[in-house]
């Protein structure tokens, strides 16, 4: 547990969860958390206390659905999967995010003409 790890930024967690589920297929909460940490190159620390309410919110909004199943280690676990609505939400939010990123990037580029 590194002290220098960044907390997940507000508002991006949902996008990460949706993307993770899209990439991995149905997954349980622990798996999602691990995957997010791995994908970030262990630069993000994900508190379960943040993840679970986020999952619940996405489920209430209909972006994901859950169902009890058995994990790879034969443990009972709750699996979350992307719904069609969630897929659309992911596309939309990913696009928005890229756009925002591109705009911001232009601001952060070093200015070329000094005069």
């Amino acid at each position, binding site marked *: 547990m590194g002290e220098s790890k960044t907390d997940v930024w507000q508002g991006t967690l949902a996008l990460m969860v949706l993307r993770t589920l899209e990439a991995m297929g149905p997954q349980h909460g622990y798996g999602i958390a*691990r995957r997010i940490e791995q994908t970030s190159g262990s630069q993000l620390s994900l508190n379960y206390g943040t993840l679970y309410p986020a999952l619940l919110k996405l489920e209430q909004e209909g972006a994901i659905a859950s169902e009890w199943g058995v*994990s790879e280690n034969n443990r*009972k676990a709750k699996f979350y999967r992307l719904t069609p609505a969630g897929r659309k939400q992911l596309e939309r939010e990913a696009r928005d995010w890229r756009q925002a990123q591109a705009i911001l990037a232009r601001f952060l580029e070093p200015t070329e003409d000094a005069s």
Partner: protein
Amino acid sequence: MRILRAWAIRLLGLFGKQRREADMAAEIDSLLDMHTADNLRSGMPQEQARRAALLKLGGTEALKEAYRERSTAPVIEHLMRDFRFAFRQLAKSPGFTATAGLVLALGVCASLAIFAFVDAALIQPLPYPDPARLVQVTETSAEFRDANISLPNYHDWKRMNTVFRSLDVFTGSGFLVDGPTGAEPARAGRVSSGFFRTLGIKLLLGRDLTEADEPPGGPHVVLLTYGAWRQRYGGRFDVIGRAVRLSGEVYTVIGVLPEDFHFPPMPRAEFWTTLDSTGECATRRSCHNLDAVARLKDGVSVAAADADMKTVAHELEREYPDSNRGYSASVIPEAEALNGPFRPILMVLMAGAGLLLLIACVNVASLVLLRAEGRRREMAVRSALGASMPRLLSQFATEAVVLAAAASALGLLLTRWATAGLKALIPADMALQMPFLLKLGLNSRVIAVAALLALLAAAIFALTPALHLVLSRMSEGLTEGSRGSAGRAWRRLGSRLVVAELAVAMVLLAGAGLFEKSLYRLLHVDLGFQPDHLATIVVGAPNVHYGSNQQSIALAREVVRKLDSLPGVRSAALTSVLPVSFNGNTDWIRIVGKPYHGGHIEVNERDVSSDFFRTIGAKLVRGRYFSDGEDLSQPKVVIVNQTLANKYFPGEDPIGRQIGDKKLSPKSLKTIIGVVDDIHEGALDSPMWPAEYHPFNQDPGPYFEVVVRTSQKPEAVLPELGRAIHQLHSDVGTMGEATMEGRIADSMTAWLHRSAAWLVGAFAVAALLLGVVGLYGVIAYSVSQRTREIGVRMALGAQQRAVYQMILRDGGRLALFGIALGAAGAVIAGTLAQSLLFGVRSWDVETLLAVAGILGTAALLASFAPARRAASTNPCDALRME
């Protein structure tokens, strides 16, 4: 959309909590297991692996809490908990709940019941299409604010105005209809042919009147009301085109009016036909006998129409100075014309009900305060345990909402019966003139007002204890026996509320007193005759058989002789209009030998039989009464009343002088043979007008009103009168049997005054009770707070007398403030309602003193009980109490 869905699920999350908790626990478990297993695989020892997993989780409880917050709606959950708690709290003190709830429910019920009437009368539109464009058009003169119009004037108005899409006139009339027991009088309306189209009435059957029906000499046609069609003609469809006999003449039925047709100025008319355009009155421009209703053109305002009609009237005045001098015209909305007379009384009642509601609210607020005071400890403890101020306040608010909502719902329920009860109090005859009663009921507006009242009450009940809570420092409650500033502050607030209550009670009591007194004055107006032991009946005979002078005189003589001979009847007489009916049916006179400037000398004109004055018990001032032999073969004679004599013959003897019509045409001249003391011809509250009385035999007609003086109760002969007349002639109609005193007591004027007196009286009694209970509450509370102080005083040697005095002085001071404040309010209220009072000024000292006395006595009685409790305090117990 997504957010809506999430909220819906969260709201659903209020249910099935247990299953969800288990689900969550299982998920956390599985998470921990997986994490621990991973940690083990990466080489951690068993203990550490589990610990690391738990650390990463950040505490199970915190996670569960976050999860819970998200899975339901916490605000609503708190609210529901508060509601449950409020119900429990209210149920725990049933005495408080029942008292507060009932008091408030009664206040709400009174206000809503009156509002339902106001709504029906003043807010709901008239039952005709596009009612806002309907107006009443009247002639106006110095004597009459809204005089009837004459037929020639109507024709000119119709031609000259530029503002009405249509202008039509109507007047009341009557027919004698063949019934199972001989001729029955039935009311009828005579209208210009466009009348029903102006109102916007679509006929149920047949056709409407048209201009082709109007010319005199054509076949008579008649429309039936739905009621007449059903009752008189069995509701048969083939009645259209049938010939019926009305007053001995043949009429063809051409149509039937719809069931919901109702025209308040003539509520009982069963037959509707065209105007009489050939009679003497119809051709005389000065014979005012029609009412007009018009529909405005689009975009024309009432004010514009009024201005236009005044111009038209002015032109006519120039053209026909003889008949139209001093006559203008006026246009007002039809709704105002029909319901206007009820507006002031409804406003007074509304104000009374509002004040009662105010008292009820104040009373309940002080009860709520008292309770809040008793719960200071509880609040302090809850606050110390971490309840935030908003949470505590929301607790009060929910209790207030529960109480106010329940009480208002109960009040609304009671209103159903209250309105029905009030409606039943209105005599059927009068109810017919109040078309708005048909629309009386609990409609959406009434319910909206109920909701508004509930909201207002809830706000009051929530804010008073909240204010109290904020004012008093929370910590104080914890210290045992603290009687600090909070107790005093509340006592001050409570006292002020009680003063307000008593003041309002005083206003209502004074109002009731004024109405009562004005009713008494009204019923004891000097009538100029003796109304006891008089029975009356109205007689109408068909023109065809009784229309000529000789026939009318013969019929009148027969009727008088027949009734005279009835057992129990001492004398019988007749007049054209019974006394205490209305000022109207006037004549324009001119006095021989007096300068004349062309103005109108307008006097009440009555045609009476020779025994009339003796029968009703009038007083002859000078001269003599008529004799039966004075008929058209004799010189014309007239008797005038005292007012006429005083006004037009000041300081002279009018006997022997002559009066005539405006031109003093020789055949109109008549000699004054007597002066009679003023007989009250107009309504009870109307001023006395000059009046002239003609011998019936010199101005006979087939319609007259009979009065008989009886030796026993007049009620006993009532049924005999009609029977006796029918024995004479079965084709003569009779109606309106009533005793003179009954007629007076049931007159619209008396009824309006009586209902005002009773209803405001009922409000006042309720207000008095509530106010006194409120005062008792405050004094009792104050005594309970000061038990220790009183104990000390008594231990130091204060006498019981002194304690009594102290407490009674407290109560007396509050009562005095309330009474003084209320007296001022009463005078203002009385001034506002002055137009409803009769013979009483708003500052009637007698009434104010009497009412103050009642209120003061009641207040003293209310403070006496707590004073006695204080005075009988045992000093030892009092000192040991805390």
